[in-house]
């Protein structure tokens, strides 16, 4: 079954003479447990695509479907709730809160949803252990290496047990080997679970790690 469907999605900015087309009629489907790598040069529309799937941007036309149901985001509040329930994002810049420990950064997600109980704490501990960070749970981001921060960011993205995981440029701040390890970590986590992953990268070396590859140039699939 296709977990994620992107149907004829287009996005334009500006109007009349100044109109810029960031995405042009992009469609694809992604099944459960699969990882898609979206490749393309800078300005190709990768980030716009990621933002639309995350509900951060509304498409100019087309639609996103999850498990066959169209995603309808009428307001920023709807979009925020959609992300809390269905999406996990790993930012290129990690965006870990510098004043929170690794464990507290994971608990930020249920805290935003207004629920932090023993269940959430156990899940945070379990994810940190899964990503080899059990010993670093009480460390501040400034005390972690780049790779460790990346893993905390991935663990945080998994805290709400999302159906769609979005990973933005996972290798931007890591060397090839560590980047590969991080992507492999994500892949091994989603495999066999009711979730899917879209990874945006400009790093051709990540192609081998993905189940499917989509190449974008000037907003179009090539």
């Amino acid at each position, binding site marked *: 079954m296709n977990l994620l469907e992107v149907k004829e999605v287009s*996005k334009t*900015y500006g109007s009349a003479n100044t109109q*810029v087309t*960031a995405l042009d009629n992009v469609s694809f489907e992604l099944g459960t447990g699969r990882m898609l790598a979206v490749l393309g040069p*800078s*300005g*190709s*529309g*990768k*980030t*716009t695509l*990621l*933002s639309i799937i*995350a509900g*951060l*941007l509304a498409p100019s036309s087309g639609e996103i479907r999850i498990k066959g149901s169209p995603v309808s985001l009428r307001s*920023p*509040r709807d979009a*925020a*709730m959609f*992300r*809390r329930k269905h*999406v996990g*994002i790993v*930012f*290129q*810049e990690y*965006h870990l*809160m*510098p*004043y*929170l420990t690794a464990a*507290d950064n994971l608990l*930020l*997600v249920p*805290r*935003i*949803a207004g629920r932090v109980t023993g269940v959430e704490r156990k899940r945070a501990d379990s994810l940190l252990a899964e990503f080899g960070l059990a010993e670093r749970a009480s460390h*501040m981001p400034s005390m972690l290496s780049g790779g460790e921060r990346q893993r905390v960011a991935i663990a*945080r993205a998994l805290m*709400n047990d999302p159906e769609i995981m979005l990973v*933005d440029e996972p290798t931007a701040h890591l060397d090839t080997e560590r980047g590969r390890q991080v992507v492999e970590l994500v892949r091994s986590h989603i495999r066999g679970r009711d979730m899917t992953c879209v990874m945006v990268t400009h790093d051709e070396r990540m192609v081998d790690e993905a189940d499917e590859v989509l190449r974008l140039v000037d*907003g179009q699939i090539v």
Partner: protein
Amino acid sequence: MLALKELLGSKLKFGLIALAIGLIVSLTFIMAAMSEGLISGMTGAKGSLAADALVFQPDTFLALERSRLTAEDLDTIATAQGVASSYGVGHAFISVDSADQPFDARAFGLGGEFEQLPIVKGSGLPGPGEAVIDISAEDNGVRIGDVVHLTPIDEELKVVGFTEGRRYIMMPVLYVDLPTWERIYVATALGRMSEQPGEQLPDLNRMTEQVSGGASIAAVHLDQDTTVEEFAESLSGGFDVVTPAEAAMAGNGMPVMMLSVNAIQVVSLVIGALVIGVFFYITTLHKTGQIAALKALGASNMFVYGQLLMQITILVAVASAIGIAITLVTGSFMPPTMAFDLQPARWIVALVAIFGMAYLGSLFSLRSILGIDPATALDRGEH
């Protein structure tokens, strides 16, 4: 608690902000204390008279200095409907020249109820020729047991006690019994005219007779079920009747002064609120990226704003403690003659206003939070 963790995570930054806000709070409190000091220095002795109502001679515009009630007037007032008890209060201008630093003062004659004076030193019940004096006179060198000389009337009073918060037009008040006040009042009215050679001597006896048994105003305690308005009506309009608080705010330029005092306090609060608002606005601008990421993770605008309000509450509470400490230390160095009166009730009002203004100032930040696009957490300037 995210807000608290952020504060604890940047102790130096937020500590400095709390200190800066604390200085603003202390400035607001010091302004309030000085304003209150001015008001109590101008009206303390008048406004704190123990009474439900003060009765003035009509058409004297509630001026203690001009009002005169005869013995018959005091009897009329004492026997009016709804009066539980009453006593006369006399006022006279005096100067003391025997202290280390000569000073102008006011003499208040009380026809009773000396227990209303808060005594800080010595005795509170002066006999004939004795006085209880406001503590601010201590700065001029007056001590318990001193016999002060009043000029130019050549009278003497023995100081038996010190009271506090009893100044009038910024001068210390000397409380005496009514017979002593009568003597001072007549002597003050006559001055040294009697000593001028070749002039007709005033009729001292006639004047003394007129003043005898009278006072400047009457202080009245009413029956429980009688209002000041009902009491005023029962006097058939023959007198001006007001509460002590109303009397304090009337005459001697007090209405104009109150306008200025209130304006000073409002302006200091508004400036404080703007500065506090700007502080939090700047900190919000500095963490635009973090806020965008929080919103991208699913945080609503209200969640982010709620965290900000919590931070404001904690920081302003800490800043208020700092501000109160600074104000208390400043106050401890103020001489009694300085217009500086720490009124806890006024502080509570000022604190509520500061918190209110801080929350109002946070609306700058709310505007900024609403404008942060969560998509910028992903955006690197490409599409």
